[in-house]
């Protein structure tokens, strides 16, 4: 197993001084190169879980095991670009080792060729999201964390970006965690779907998808969705 997460409990104190349990008994594991997708209600603590898994939040009970020295690429919910650096500088800053060929390939795939020298303030949200994706892939991560990377984009653009993420994920071995509200994202991208409860959050169902991403045509997607519906999970 490449990634093993056993969070027994995560409690935090809100601004009013009340203690709230965000996660309780949150366990899952992913093999190297698998894409795990987390689907759950808003505010159920998905981002909290991601922060713990990437090591931003050491204040929890339990254990997270990931290979030491693994390179992490992350797409946050908001793009988190440096507004004072151009698109290209933003990417190069985290990936100083990336050569020109890799970068042109990435910028090409994500349709960012024309925006390399723009500042983030000059970009639409959709473009900024794509820059954040480019940045995460440019580091050639062993771990890729995507926190609702397609939220609040229109359907056509979300579908295109979803395809681009699938291409990039399949181009190399990268263990991926994707958090989303969208069952579409889940069935298009996931190897293993995790459905989450209300808070305190934990995994209530784990559904593996065996069809390779490349072979999921509309009919296959429909079949997977039907199966999820049979499991009464698709409407969570």
């Amino acid at each position, binding site marked *: 197993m490449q990634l093993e997460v056993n969070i027994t409990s995560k409690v935090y104190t809100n601004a009013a001084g009340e203690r709230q349990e965000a996660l309780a008994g949150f366990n899952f594991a992913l093999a190297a190169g698998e894409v795990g997708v987390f689907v759950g209600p808003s505010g159920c603590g998905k981002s909290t879980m991601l922060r713990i898994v*990437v*090591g931003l939040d050491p204040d929890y009970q339990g254990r997270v095991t990931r290979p030491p020295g693994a390179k992490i690429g992350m797409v*946050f919910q*908001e793009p*988190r670009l440096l507004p*004072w*650096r151009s698109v290209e500088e933003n990417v190069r800053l*985290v990936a100083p080792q990336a050569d020109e060929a890799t970068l042109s390939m990435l910028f090409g795939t994500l349709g960012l060729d024309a925006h390399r020298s723009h500042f983030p*303030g000059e970009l639409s949200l959709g473009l900024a999201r794509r820059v954040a994706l480019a940045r995460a892939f440019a*580091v050639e991560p062993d771990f890729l964390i995507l926190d609702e990377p397609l939220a609040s984009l229109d359907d056509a653009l979300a579908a295109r970006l979803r395809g681009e993420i699938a291409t990039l994920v399949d181009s190399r071995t990268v263990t991926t965690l994707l958090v989303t509200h969208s069952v579409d994202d889940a069935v298009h991208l996931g190897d293993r779907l995790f459905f989450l409860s209300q808070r305190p959050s934990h995994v209530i169902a784990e559904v593996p998808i065996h069809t390779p991403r490349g072979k999921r045509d509309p009919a296959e997607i429909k079949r997977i969705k039907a199966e999820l519906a049979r499991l009464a999970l698709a409407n969570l």
Partner: protein
Amino acid sequence: MVRLLSFAAFLATWWGASLLAGDQKLPPPPIVLAAVVAEAKSGALFFHLGVTLARVALAFILAMSVGSALGYLMGRVRLADRLGDPWLILLLHLPALVVIVLAYIWAGLTEVAAIAAIAINKLPTAVVTLREGTRTLDATLDEMADVFAIPRWKAFRHVILPQLAPYLAAAARSGLSLVWKIVLVAELLGRPNGVGFEIGVAFQLFDIPLLLAYSLTFAALVLTIETALVQPIEARLSRWRRRAA
């Protein structure tokens, strides 16, 4: 063009006022200009301006670097803030004259005492400004730098410093004007050269053309440095903002 017009208006007002007040109290522009030329010819003007400028530069750099470092530390580390805060408040409210006089008493009438006294006067404003700036740093960008394992010095240069740039600029701006004001007092009280010393001499001799000659060239120097140095740097630092602040 507008600047020239405003300068012309200044000259006209001055000339008019000198006609009303009389040459004794307020000499007209040509007399002051003659004094400037005479001082420039003897080389004294450039010498004294240069000496003052050197003191300003040294005290400014000293106060900015120490003050910024302390401000950053106090913004980041709570203990440092608690320890430093009472001293900061004391220094902020200590009159410049007290600092200068004490510096001359304790360190003698030396160059070190003068520069230290000027720097200490400017220091607390730099600390306060940078502390505020550090408190507004975007934690989400820190997390980004953390997750992507950007090396510390690189994160400081590309993530932290650009956020502090407006605060550094504000500290430099207000600090520079403070230093300009205080340097002359320090020179008047304890240095044998510099614009402040010359103004002291002119005051004792009641030589008003000489006094105005030094005051106005000094003002011109300040204006030149502001427009030629400070403003372009500010503009460059904020070029990524689409609307000028």
